[in-house]
């Protein structure tokens, strides 16, 4: 502890960081809450001297707005599906990676690559992969399947599927998004789980071996419980990240946020906040942000509660 009369020194050392935090974190949070409760708040008008009355009209606007339902549904669907799927896959891959001796380092690097690659770039590659129409450099008006996925399933005699282009179905769009998000979420989860696995005492496995434990039982009764703190961490951060999903949609569908025939079909909560902002509806954006915050908070609290019961030691 710093002596009482020397405390001002400590404060001075902290000051630069505190000032930045106040300006860029604390004030914006406070201001978001304030703006959310000012009916119809608009930044330009506020500068012009307009007074806004205090109320909850922003919130009711958000909820009444028809696009909000779509955004909420998309966000929740993506979260609920991708987080468990990616966690399970990451767990399996981590366990496999951990049991491979040769090329272990190389494989770890390969699995970690998506993490350091630009989301938008990956999205564009995915968009190309799932494409159904491609001119292949010609002016031929006839549709040719250029996407690698459609080419592959074509080998097995399956008709090309319209994943993301005009006229594609919501289910197909969602499938692409899920594959993309899962793939993108794997590296971080693998990294955390692999770290966890490597810190598990090998003797537990020796003990299990001597007791004649089958492989699947060893996995479910020993590996998973011992990894449960890491799994909980990965799931919670996964949900928080999932609720903020936006850039991946842009990556695949571009700014239209959906196939050309159905713009905005895959919009998410963050997308909604973003578009409200760009339309000058700061009040509505703030309200939506607070609603999103509330949802994330609630989900996290539920998870922490479950974690207390299910996560061992």
């Amino acid at each position, binding site marked *: 502890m710093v002596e009482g009369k020397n405390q001002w020194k400590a404060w001075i050392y902290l000051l630069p960081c505190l000032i930045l935090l106040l300006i860029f974190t604390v004030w914006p949070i406070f201001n978001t809450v304030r703006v959310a409760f000012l009916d119809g708040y608009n930044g330009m008008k506020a500068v012009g001297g307009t007074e806004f009355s205090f109320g909850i009209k922003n919130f009711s606007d958000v909820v009444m707005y028809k696009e909000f339902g779509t955004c909420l549904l998309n966000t929740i669907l993506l979260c609920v599906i991708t987080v468990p799927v990616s966690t399970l896959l990451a767990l399996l891959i981590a366990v496999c990676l951990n049991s491979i001796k040769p090329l272990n380092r190389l494989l770890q690097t390969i699995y970690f690559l998506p993490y350091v690659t630009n989301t938008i770039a990956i999205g564009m590659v995915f968009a190309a992969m799932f494409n159904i129409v491609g001119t292949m450099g010609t002016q031929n008006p006839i549709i040719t399947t250029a996407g690698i996925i459609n080419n592959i399933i074509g080998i097995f005699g399956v008709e090309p599927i319209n994943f993301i282009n005009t006229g594609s179905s919501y289910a197909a769009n969602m499938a692409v998004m899920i594959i993309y998000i899962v793939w993108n979420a794997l590296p971080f989860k693998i990294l955390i789980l692999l770290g966890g696995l490597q810190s598990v005492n090998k*003797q*537990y496995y020796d*003990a299990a071996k001597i007791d*004649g434990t089958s492989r699947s039982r060893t996995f479910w009764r020993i590996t998973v419980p011992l990894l449960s703190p890491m799994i909980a961490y990965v799931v919670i951060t996964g949900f928080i990240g999932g609720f903020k999903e936006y850039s991946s949609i842009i990556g695949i569908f571009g700014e239209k946020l959906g196939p050309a025939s159905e713009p905005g079909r895959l919009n998410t909560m963050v997308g909604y906040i973003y578009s409200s902002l760009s339309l000058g509806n700061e009040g509505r954006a703030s309200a939506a942000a607070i609603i999103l915050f509330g949802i994330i908070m609630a989900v996290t609290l539920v998870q922490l509660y479950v974690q207390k019961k299910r996560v061992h030691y």
Partner: protein
Amino acid sequence: MKLKLEGITKIFPSRNKNGKEVVAVNDFTYEIPDGKLVGLLGPSGCGKSTTLYMICGLQKPSSGKIFFGDDDVTELTPENRGVGLVFQNYALYPHMTVKQNIMFPLENLKGADRLKKDQMLERAYEAAKLVQIDELMDRKPSELSGGQQQRVAIARALVKMPRVLLLDEPLSNLDARLRLQTREEIKRIQRETGITTVFVTHDQDEAMSISDFIVVMKLGVVQQIGKPQDVYDNPANLFVAKFLGIPPINVLKGVVKNDKLYIDGKEIKEFKGVKDSYIKAEAAMKLKIADFISNIPEELRGPFEKAVSSEDYNTIEAGPYPVVADYMRKEKGLLEQIAKNAFDVYVGIRPEGFNLNDNGNFELALDKIEVMGRDISLICKNEASINPFVRAIISSDFKISENAETVKFDIKPHKLFVFNGVTEERIYE
């Protein structure tokens, strides 16, 4: 169930290309009688844990066979051997309660061996009662003391009624007081169950106190096997003599000339048979070198033999079999002493092997006296001693003046051992 080890050897390959492979266990042959408690004893790195892991099947011997009763289990996986292993740090599953931990091996059983849930519970409670933890069944390992965890680990190993029970350094994680208690406990459990038990320890006290037999190992080679008291009273070589006994044995340099043993120039006693033993040791060493050469692959043998015959130690030591140079030096040393007809030996005298006697023929310079109540330790000095001090323990009934400069002793003949000064093997009179 008797447990038979037939020439088991474990060689760990070298880590890199030029590294030497490590022989962790070398040609270990021993038959453990049914229902006995055997302690594998040795300093760290002597191969005792490796031996244990080979018995339980977590490691495969490079050569040799392991039998449980009449079954050859060498090729069997651990789960098919029917062994219970208690790990050094217990390896209790931290997320399971004591009950779940103990029942876990039973839940793994399949087919005809599979028990009903209530039978499992019964067996678990039986095992728990045996180690006296039946009141802790719903706790997690983290809520138990070290000693209790130890018992849970033993119960988990016993619950499936193993043919052989193995314990890896079972007491090393316990404090001194608990250690004393637990070792009695282990002995009791072993007696009650009658399961053939092997345990590993580096603590000779522990091994001596509870084992029916001890196996002393050094650098992968078994030094001596026997009942604890027999090994203590009759060590086969200097290593065993030094390793067993607290306080440790006094080792002094001595010379045997004309069948008489001298320490520091003074005659101690008559000691016959030294010359013969040196001649035998030399012949044995010669045979060992020849045997070694014949086992070397043919393409390497020519240059190697040449180096051996020209006593080119540097070449041998740089080659793949540096140990031969060591053998050759020893043989040469033995020959020299035989030629001189004066034999440098090590003399081991147990601290309790001294009798105070004013007319005794062994005189030591007294340094200080340590009083321990029941008896006293005379800390003496002698030029010939390998250790900094010679310790003599005598009954506290004897009164020694603090000012005495020297003390005279008789040495109890059965507490004095003579070892070959080159090979360090025991020389029997």
